[in-house]
Every structure is written in structure tokens, then in C-alpha cells.
């Protein structure tokens, strides 16, 4: 009988031991708020996650649907689908899938930046690391909020990390004053915290100053040209222009890391992403394993030419291979007509003839082999299948030169305008005589189109200058609000009780 009791006793113990174990299982197969943000390396990885959001397939390429397709720069491939065609035709509704993808991705990026901010501030990391991490996170939060402002106008500001179900329904800010103040505050912090430190794919102090200049310029011109709801900004347009000029000037004069690259080819060399021009450039590489890690941007811009490898003639008479593309963003004749025939941005950067590997011409735009002249801004001669290192140019030095020129709009800023034209090999303005400030600013807008064509910028210029209908015939008949902002995506309106 004793054996029996022993066995029973041990079984009872065994049952007892089991019941002491907890019902909570800590995940060991992935990171979560329970096991992450322990070290500065964790915070670093988290910051890279925030940068990585910018490479999302439904974010980076979608910028071009907005800023190129909806303008006089590009037309869409005819069977790209209704959502894409809607941009060209100015029929974008709140149901548009590309629109919702972009919107959501911007907030994903913001949330990742917020995760860094909340988990770095006051965690006792050394001050240098803390400032660098926070500075870049503040920059990214402002960068993505600015994308939201440009595309949607008044939309939620996410000021803190969303990690609980109770936090998933954001409210709308009161107006642009609140939105701009928040972005500017973030960027001023970034400007304070960051040093000049060029790393391709990341932002530094100069990027923060450059973005401040761009944001102020956007606000200034939008208020000045009567874009809806911008009258809510408390500062005058003049003061905003001044602020834009102030920060642009810092970029142009107070540092030596970045500068004007007189060689057009350098700027668009995929292997030279640390060139002087690139204040902020997205990082993608052909060695990646999934789209987003590598880029397919070239595929969007290059037309379909039979599905094989084609060769392009370089300025030095050598030839470089590239894959052909999907013909998604098709250069308009209108855009080509904006350039002088000798403009290097046409002669060197628009492809009208292709060759085979033995350097024999195999077709031209004129003979119909190439269905439109396509840009060389996204060519990776070392492409692997569809995988390339073609990167979106996020902030170029030339951009800030023109921001400064536009903000100042005076003789002092004219050389920057001329520098851009000189590089393109077209005539310069000797002085501003006979030109009002407005006239000069409009000339700059025209120059910006030629300089930044295919770089995801055109629509924002047209919007802030209230000029969409001047250049885009498809936009005729739309209300000022419809021209200035895309609608908040339907899912947000449906699910978020704070927005309708």
C-alpha cells in the first residue's frame, strides 16, 4: 500500500508543479515591447525600421503616381488599372487603393519614428547617441507628416506611439497652423540635435534645415496663392518666405559637405549616391531580397521594348545595358516641349534611341520602337533581373538652391537659379530687370519642372502655387479644395469616428 501512496503523492506533486506555471507565454520567436528597446543598438535598429518604411512598395513608388501622373509630366500606361488612371484623369476618389496605401504607409513610418522617440527619450543612453537617434526620428516624423500635408491637407497628426487598441482612432488637428507648428517644432529639434553627418539613406542636420526650408516655402507660397485653408497660418507669407530663405541659406552657405554638382551625369549615377547633390536619398540596393529592399523604379519609367536587355548610349560614346520596363509612367510630349533642344536634361537625360550589345541601333522613338522618350534618372547598368539600386532622390542640393532663389526672389538669389541653368547648358538671366518678384518665382517653378522632372515633385509645386488647372487640362472644373488635396481615404472615414 505504501508504494501506492508514494505514487499518488508524486502525481499530486507533479500536478501541483504544473499548475504553478504561468499562463502567460513570453514570445521568444519575435521581438515585442516586452523584449525590445533594451540597448542603444535596439534603438538604432528601430530607427532603421523607421527609415525602412520609406522603401515600402506601396509608399515610395506611389509618390510618382501622385506627383508625376497627376501633372503635365507623365501619362499613365493605358491598362495600369482604374486606380492609377484616376491620377492622370483627376478622378481620384476616397476609394482609390493607391491613395489609401500611401496614406497608411505614411502613418506606418510616423509610428515607427514615434517608437524611437518614446523609447529613447530619457532611457539613459549617452547624450550623443540619444540626440542623434532622436534627431533623426524627429526628422522622419516631420518628413512623413509633410507628405501627408502635401497629399491630403488636414489629416491626423500622430504625436505618440500607437500600440494599444484604444489609441487607434486619431482626431483631426484644428488646422494647418497646428500641423505646420508641429512639423516645424520636430525639425527645429532635429536641427538642434543633429550634426552634419552624411550617410546615404539617412538624414542629418543639413537634411533637417533643407526640409525646414521646403516646408516654409510650401506654406509661404500656398498662403500667398490662396490655397484653401492656408489662411489659417498665423505668419504672413512674407515672413514664411523669409524663414524658408533663412534655412535654405544655412544649407547653401553654412556647410561644405553638400554642394552643387556641375556634372549632370554624376547626380544620376546609381553607384554615386554619396555625390555632393544628395542631401537625402532613399537607400535601396539590388542585392536585396524583396522589392523595397531593392528597387524596381526603373521598370516603372522605362517603356516595354520586347522584354530583353537594351543598350543606351552614354555621353562619352560608350554604351550601357539596362532592362526594359513596364511603361507605367510615360513622358508627355508637353514635358519634352518645355525644354530647349540643346538642354542637356534632354540631350543627356532623355533616351530616344536604343542599341544592341554590338552598339547597333535597334530602334528609336521616331520609328515607334520606343513608345516615348524615357528618363535616364533611374538606370542601373548592373541590374539583376528586375532588381536595381535606383533610388528616389528625396532632397537634392539643387532643390534647396531653387528654394532659396524662390524664397528671396531677388538679385541676391539669382546666381543659384543661373547655376542650375548653366549646368543644363541653357541661357542664363543676366539680371531681373523687367521681372516682378512673381514673374521670377514663376520662372523658377518652370525651371523646377525641367530640373526635377520624374523626381516626384511637380504636383506639389503646382498645388502650392495654386496652378494645377493652368498646366493640367484634366483638372478642369474641379473645386479649389479638390485641386489642393486628395480626399482622406474611405476606410479612415468609415472606421474612425473622429473623422467623417
Amino acid at each position, binding site marked *: 500500500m505504501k508504494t501506492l501512496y508514494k505514487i499518488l503523492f508524486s502525481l499530486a506533486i507533479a500536478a501541483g508543479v504544473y499548475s504553478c506555471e504561468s499562463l502567460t*507565454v513570453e514570445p521568444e520567436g519575435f*521581438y515585442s515591447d516586452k523584449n525590445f528597446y533594451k540597448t542603444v543598438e535596439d534603438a538604432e535598429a528601430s530607427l*532603421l525600421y523607421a*527609415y525602412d518604411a520609406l522603401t515600402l512598395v506601396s509608399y515610395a513608388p506611389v509618390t510618382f503616381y501622385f506627383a508625376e501622373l497627376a501633372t503635365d509630366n507623365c501619362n499613365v500606361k493605358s491598362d495600369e488599372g482604374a486606380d492609377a488612371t484616376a491620377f492622370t484623369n483627376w478622378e481620384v476618389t476616397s476609394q482609390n487603393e493607391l491613395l489609401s496605401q500611401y496614406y497608411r504607409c505614411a502613418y506606418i513610418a510616423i509610428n515607427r519614428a514615434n517608437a524611437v522617440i518614446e523609447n529613447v527619450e530619457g532611457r539613459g543612453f549617452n547624450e550623443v547617441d540619444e540626440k542623434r537617434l532622436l534627431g533623426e526620428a524627429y526628422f522622419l516624423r516631420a518628413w512623413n507628416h509633410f507628405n501627408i500635408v502635401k497629399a491630403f491637407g488636414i489629416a491626423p497628426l500622430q504625436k505618440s506611439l500607437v500600440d494599444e487598441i484604444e489609441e487607434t*482612432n486619431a482626431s483631426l488637428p484644428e488646422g494647418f497652423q497646428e500641423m505646420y507648428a508641429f512639423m516645424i517644432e520636430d525639425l527645429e529639434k532635429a536641427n538642434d540635435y543633429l550634426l552634419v553627418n552624411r550617410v*546615404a539613406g539617412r538624414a542629418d542636420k543639413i537634411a533637417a534645415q533643407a526640409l525646414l526650408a521646403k516646408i516654409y516655402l510650401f506654406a509661404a507660397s500656398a498662403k500667398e496663392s490662396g490655397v484653401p485653408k492656408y489662411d489659417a497660418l498665423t505668419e504672413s507669407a512674407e515672413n514664411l518666405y523669409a524663414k524658408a530663405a533663412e534655412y535654405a541659406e544655412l544649407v547653401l552657405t553654412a556647410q561644405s559637405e553638400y554642394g552643387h554638382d556641375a556634372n549632370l551625369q554624376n547626380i544620376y549615377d546609381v553607384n554615386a549616391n554619396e555625390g555632393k547633390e544628395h542631401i537625402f536619398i532613399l537607400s535601396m540596393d539590388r542585392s536585396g531580397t524583396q522589392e523595397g529592399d531593392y528597387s524596381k523604379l526603373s521598370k516603372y519609367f522605362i517603356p516595354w521594348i520586347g522584354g530583353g536587355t537594351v543598350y543606351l548610349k552614354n555621353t562619352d560614346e560608350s554604351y550601357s545595358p539596362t532592362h526594359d520596363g513596364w511603361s507605367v509612367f510615360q513622358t508627355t510630349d508637353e514635358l519634352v516641349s518645355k525644354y530647349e533642344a540643346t538642354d542637356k536634361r534632354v540631350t543627356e537625360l532623355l533616351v530616344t534611341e536604343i542599341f544592341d550589345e554590338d552598339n547597333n541601333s535597334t530602334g528609336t522613338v521616331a520609328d515607334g520602337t520606343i513608345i516615348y522618350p524615357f528618363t535616364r534618372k533611374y538606370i542601373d547598368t548592373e541590374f539583376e533581373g528586375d532588381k536595381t539600386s535606383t533610388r528616389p532622390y528625396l532632397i537634392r542640393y539643387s532643390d534647396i538652391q531653387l528654394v532659396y532663389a524662390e524664397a528671396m526672389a531677388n538679385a541676391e538669389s539669382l546666381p543659384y537659379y543661373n547655376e542650375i541653368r548653366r549646368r543644363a547648358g541653357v541661357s542664363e538671366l543676366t539680371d531681373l530687370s523687367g521681372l516682378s518678384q512673381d514673374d521670377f518665382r514663376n520662372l523658377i517653378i518652370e525651371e523646377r519642372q525641367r530640373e526635377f522632372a520624374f523626381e516626384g515633385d511637380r504636383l506639389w509645386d503646382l498645388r502650392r502655387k495654386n496652378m494645377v488647372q493652368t498646366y493640367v487640362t484634366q483638372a478642369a472644373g474641379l473645386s479649389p479644395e479638390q485641386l489642393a488635396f486628395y480626399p482622406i481615404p474611405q476606410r479612415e472615414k468609415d472606421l*474612425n469616428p473622429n473623422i467623417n
Partner: protein
Amino acid sequence: MKNRFGIFKRAFLVLTLCSISAFAFAQQIKLQGVVSDVSGMPLPGVNVYEKGTTTGTITNIDGEYNISLSSAEATVVYSSIGMVQQEMVVGVRTTLNVVLEDEMLGLDEVIVIGYGSVQKSDLTGAVSSVKMEALPMKPAGSIDGLLQGQSAGVQVTASSDSPGAGATIRIRGGSSYRSGSDPLVVVDGFPIGDAGNLSQISPNDIASMEILKDGSSTAIYGSRGANGVIMITTKKGAQGKMEVTVSQQNTISEFTSELNLWRDPVLMAGLSNESRINGGFVPLYVGANDPNGVYYPSVKELEDGSWPYNTRWDDVVFRNPVSNNTNIALRSQTEKTQFSLSTTYFTDQGIYIEDDYKKLNVNLNVTHKAHEKLTIGTNVYFTKGNRNNNGGLAYWRNPIFPVYEDNDPTKDYYLVGTQDYSHPIALTENRSSTTEFLDFLGAAYAEAQILSSLKFKSQLNYKYGRSLSEYYNPKVYTEDGTFNNGSAGIDNYDTNEIISESILTFDKVYNDTHKVNAMGGFSYRYKKDPSSSLRAYDFLNESLGSGNLSGGDPEKQRVSNGLSEEVMYSWFGRLNYVMAEKYMATLTMRADASSKFGPNNKWAMFPSGALGWKMHHEDFIKNLNVFDELKLRASYGISGNQEPIGAYLINSRYGQDQYYVNGRWQTAIGPGYVSRWDSQTGKKLWSGIPNPELKWETTRQLNLGVDLAFFNRRLRVIADYYNKYTNDLLRERWLSPSAAYDLMYVNSGEIKNQGIELTIEGDVIDTQDWRLSGSLIVSRNKNEVVALGDELAFGLSSDPNTGMLYEFNGSNVEAFRAIPNILAIGEAVNVFYGHKVDGIIQSEQEGLAAGLDGKLAQPGEFKYVDINEDGVIDENDRTIIGDPNPDFLASLNLQLSYKNLDLAMFFNGSFGQDVLNTKAFSEPSNTPLRWTQDNPTNDYPSLRDGRNYYLSDWYVQDGSFVRLQNVSLMYNIKNIGLSWFKRARVTVNATNLFTISNFEGYDPEVGNDGIYWGGYPKLRKYTLGVELTF
């Protein structure tokens, strides 16, 4: 033989010792006699013992026994597996001959239920029992196939003939929208997991299966019980002496019908040209190179024989597969110890060449009475096997191309263009893909009789499973290999599960009228599944393949792994009460807590109750002299389903990616992870926000049943009605996009299943030499999607014509660029949604009048119906066009015996389900029937390449069928006078002999979504089996 005598000796010794000790302490009464069956045949190996003592013996080969009893008041118990136990009071007798009835006929077989057993007559719930020895020997590598047609309300769909493939089992319809509608399988008290692919248990080792269907019987399994429970009892040691059983089955298979492939290249080429010309394309068969540089002969070349090739690819790719099933079992039982060791070696060939499956099962089962009040035991199942994957070869290849260049096997493979990735011989010879698997199930238990009425049992179960898959895709012949310059991978998946359960059972009869059985217990479950995946690309040298992954480019190697853990605690209890053998009541309760449930819903409660009334024990029924049994049953219970809930859905979860900085990839980690890719847009969907409310799916089930028996139980009827209502279904809801997350799992959605089940069993002829018995099982289940959650939060679509809310469910059919199945409120699960077709357009006016335009309005096109009558055919003209759920299932088992010869037939039928025949206009059997100017048919459209085919009711066909699923002829040899020989059985068996159906494809038995994908015909299998028992 040596062994056998060893056991005998020991048994003798034990018996002798028992008798001596008994003799020493009590006054002896001697009793002897013969135990025989109803036909007078002596029964060897029957347990004979004095009730309440350890005194006992077993009958010898002639059924004789000798036992010494303590007193004349002693009760002697006679028991044997498969026989109804008898109890006799000795009185003054010294000789007592006893007849034991076959349990199959009896009312009081023991039925295994959750955490206990019950006399069949005392059942209050809906439980079916399948005794394996009552089934004819069927060839089967896994138990799923054995269940088909054996129990009302159990639907077994075997849509694949691939070796080692499982079946889909549904008990009383599916009650979850997500995966996770599979019943729970419990083997000898060990809940091992989902039914569907149970390779661990060899069918040879199964003694019986019980199927728990209603709320009262499944509630005891709580959050794992809602889909029904299959209780498997394995074979235990034979009574008395060592028994060795050797069985051997060999099966050869063939297609049930001819393959529907192009045999006439001239016709094929002609139709292809016609189709391309109609579509505005350059015809292919013109005696020139196509754009990829492949030469296609002209129709004329094919006609006059100057093109020499007409390959029958099916002969190249398919074979008549042979499978082998060998089982050796040793079973023995002495008074103290029983053991059973069974080994099964199973090999199965797929229909494709070199598509093979092998498996070894070992089952060891030992119980030992360590003490008069303590029994300990162990059950071990070990399975090891491997699979060489070579399925899916291109039997459909174009017959005009030879296998080898110039049809010369010494030359290279003939490849069609540079991107030919479907050459079956090239793939067979150069690609490798294997899976090795190992499964271990072990259980150890101790059972103590603490008091005469109180029993304690504790069982510790452990399950380990491992699978290792390897592949190598070579640089040529495979797409993946070509793209990556050689691609190899190894995938590891392990599963570990511990379940520890302790139960106390109280069993007592008060005043001979109040039978009380109470059970209470505790269960702990822990599960841990690690997995890893290795990938290598870009191989310099291909000879080692996946054997040396480091042979790939070091910079392209990829490693990933995962880990999932789960913990669950449960308390449960049951009270059974039977009064005066007439009135019965059962109450059960289970409480489950799981690590998968949100902190706000940690404990789940699952109560149930049932009532039964054995009216045949009431005098007013007895007096009618009609019923041998008339029992009414009613039950109501709540059970749950936690299978759809993945581990960690209640945790916040970060994602991981990489960002290219400073010339290298760096790890990036932060909030939000990609939970899946959107099935329609292909975009990443982000999750990671925890739901603290997350919980199990809840099923409430009402069951009303009646059991009837007439004519000395020769006619038996069981009828049940059930109504199952499931709510809190696990679904994904959308979040506001500004929250930075797309989806979150929540409990929302409701589904209803109700149905009736009828089982009629009859022993039509029952004479000394002849027996004819049969059973007819009919069941009907009707399901209905009741709720899918908030329209906006769940992104439901709305039918523009009826306002019906729905969402797409399941897989996309490329031919239609559409998902055919929807979940629609008020409709059955998975109904088809698409256009309607009203014949074929015969003139352009007719087409334009129908609302079609352009190419779609031309003669020979489908005349789609303009449902909303807006003059345009578009997606707003879709409606429900079919229902893949059967109206009812029926099966008929017939068994005819003459002396030692048994003939069994099993018909299986399914009626009223629709099948979407995606091949209705793309096969050699139907494309020649196309519309042409000369053949203006109203049945088929014209051939036109590039046509956009809408999913329409034109493709929906009646999938009703009746199949002669199985016929077996068995000859039994026994009592031939050899002392060492017990019995032998020789069986000839044919599976899938014929099918009656109007369905146009090979076979209408498809998956639950009702989509027929084509493929090849079902297999017919012939098996020869021999079983010898010594």
C-alpha cells in the same frame, strides 16, 4: 514459439500462487464449466473471476474453466472483449456452463467517451461507435478513409489520391470561417490534435472509434470540442495467451477512366489555330518558329505524318502504383500484465513516377497490475517515414513534342523554348524534393482504485513530431533554379506537446436503482513548435544539391526560424445519473484557460446537460410488445474552438526588416509586422497591435434523438436532430489606416448548422449458415452564415441588386481572375458568386440586345444575363450561382455471409452539391464541341484566344454522385484442428469500383469549396490481403 511457452509458464505460476494463497485463507468452493458463444462454439480466453477479489482464471482452448471461490454467495464474472459480460451467483452449483452473447448485437457495449466510458444503453448524447472488427478489411494507410460512411453526420472528403494525403473530416458541418473546423482526435485518452492527416496511428492497431457529436458529449473537451471529437481506442492484448497476427495487403491502382488528353494532334492544332485566329493572334501551327524560337509544325505536316512525334505524356508520367501494407502484431494478456506490440510497414506509390511514400509504425502498449489496487500502463506510438515528392508532373504537355531530341533517349531532353520548366523527365532526373518525418506519441498512466467506488487516474502524454524537407532546383529545367542559378533549401519543423491529466471517478449504485457516476479532473497542456528554414542560391557545383548548402554563394544564404508556445489549463467534471434504468441525466462542465486567450477573457466555461428516458423499461411500452428499445435523448451544451487562434495574437508584435546603410544590410526592428499579403492587391498587410479581448469561438448545440429497436433488436433505428449555433468566430477587422496597422483579430461572426441524421440497421437474415445485414445512413446538414461583423470594419461587399452583404473566401481561379466562393449573410458557406449565362449568342443583334458590346457581343460568345437590367454587363450583374454544400449524404453498407465467406459492399453518395467545373471548356473532350458558323450550338462558345471569361453558372454542374466505394470478399478459416493456429482471413477488396454522376469532369468529389481543378481521374484500387493469427 519459445516465447509463447514462457508466457504460459509465468501465467501458470501466477495462477498457482493465487490459488495457493486463496486456499490458505478461505474456505474453498470449486466451480467448473464451459463458456461458449450463442452458436455453441466454445470460447477460449474468457476471463472468469470472482467479483471483488483477485481470484480468477481464463478458459482454455475448449472453453473450459476451473475456479476456486470463497463462498457460495460469490458472484462470478465472465468477460471477453467483444462479448457481453455475464455475472452469475454460484449458489450450490459446482458446474456452470455459460453462453456469452456477441457484443455487436447487444445493447450494452461499452462506449468510450471523454474521460471515461459508458454503457451504450446509458448514453444521453449523440455518439456513434465504429467497431473495427465489424468492418471489412479495407486498404488504408491512414484512419481517415476508414471513417467514410460509417457514422451519420460525419463527412469525409478525400479529394486527393496523392500518397500520404489526408482527407477532410467534418462532423455536422463546418462551424468556423477560418481553418480549424477539423474534429479533435483522442487516442487512448490522449488528445493528439486535429483530424485530417493522422499518419501516426496505423489502421491495423485500431480497435474502435467513437465519434462524439452533440454538445453534451463534446463539452467535456471544452475549447477543443466544438468540431466534434473522434475517440480512438487501440487494440489491446488478447486474452490468456500469446497471439501473433501477421497481415499482408498489397494494392494495385489504376485510373477509373481514360485520361482526357489530346490524342489527335491534327485536331488539337486545328482548334488552336482557329482559336488564335478568332482572337486576332497569329496562328501557331503554321510550320514556323513562334516568337520564342520554337518550331511549330503546320496542320498539314501533322496530317500527312511528316511531323513524326505524337507523345503520350501520360504514359511517360504515370504508372500503375503498387502499395504494400505489412503488419505483425504480438498481443498477450495474463492476469497481471497485458501487452501488445504491433509493427506496420506501409509503402505507397503515387500515380506519378518516383512519387513515393514509406512509413513504419510501431505501437507498444503495456499495462501491468502493480498492486491489487494499482494499474500502471504505457502506450507508445512511433512513426517514421519519408516522402519523395515528384507529383504534379506535366502529363498535359503538348503531344507534338518528343521526350528527347529526335525521340532518341540517348540524346538531350527536348525542351520547348528557353523557358521550359515542365519537362517531366528532366525534372524527375534532376530535381530533388524529399520530406522525412518522425512522430512519437507516448503516454504513461497509473490508475488506483482508492475505494471500491473511487478511482484515481493520472496520465502523462507526450507528443513529438519532426519533419525535415529538402529540395534542390537545378540551374536548368526549373524556374526557381534558373532565376537563382541553382536553389536549395532545408526546412525543419518540430512539434512538442505535453498533456498531463488527472481524473477521479466515483461509481456507485445505490439501492440497485440509483446509478451514480461522477468524474472530475484537471488537465495541463504545453505545446512548443520550433521551426527553421535554410536557403542557399547560386551554386558553383550542382552535384551535392541540398546536401551542401554552403556550396551556394555565401552572400546569398538565408536563415530564418520561428518558435511558438502555448499553455492551457483545464478543470472538468461530469455527473451521470441513472434512475431505475429508466431516467438518465448527465451534466458536464469544463473550464479552460489558455495563453492564447486575451487577458480580459482568460477563462472559458463550457457547461452541458442531457436527459434520457428509456421508455422501453416502462410498463406501458413493454405492454405494446413492439419496442425492444425506445429511448429518447435530449441534450444542450456549449463547446469551443480555439484552433483558429494562433499563438501570440494577444501580444504586441514587432516586425523585422533590413535597411541598406554604409554599404551593407542592417537589421531594422520596430512596431508592426507583415501578417499576410492581401489576396487581391498582393500588398503587405500590417498587424501587431494586441487584442486583450481575444477568445475562443463558441458553439451552442441542441440535440434531440431517439433510439429504436424492433424484432428482437434485428431492426435498429437511430435518429437525431441538431441545431448548432456558433458565435464569436475569429475574424480579422480593419483598423483606421492612420493607426498604422491594417488588421487585428477579433471575435465576430456567427454561423448556424442544423440537420438531421438517420441510421437504420437491420439483420435481415440470421441463420446458422446465412447472414445478411445492412445499414443505411442518411444525414442532412444545412448551414447558414448568420453574421460577418460590422460591414465597414470587416470590409464587406454589398450586392448592388439585393443588398446582400458578403466577402470573398478562398482561392482565386486564374481562368476567371475571380474568387468563386463567398461568405454571404443568409446563405450557405462558400456559395458561388458570378454571372449567369443564357446560352450562346447566335447573332450580333442578339448580343447587343443582351447588353453586351464589342467582342463580347459577337456570335459564339456567352450570352451573359443583364441581371440589373441596366443595359450593360458588368460586375454588378453577379449573383449567387451555386452551392457546393450537399443537400444530403447517404451511405449503404451491406454484409452477406455464408458460413466462412463474407461479402461486404459499401455505397457512398452525396447529393445536391454544385461543383464549379473550371475545365468545362478547356479540355480535349469539350473544346471540339465549340460554336462555329457551321455548328451554331447553344451549348458551347466559340474558341477565341484572349477572351476574358467571366465566372458564370455555365461552369456550375451538379456534383451529385453515388459511388460503389468498396467491395470486399473475405474468407475466414478457423478451428481447423491445429493447436497453434487460430484463424486466418483472406480478403479481396476493390475500392472505387464505379461512380454514377452527371458531372462532366473526372470525379465530382472535390474539396469543400466545390471547385474542380481538373487533374487526373480518381484511382481504383484492388487489394489482396491475408491475415494469419497464431
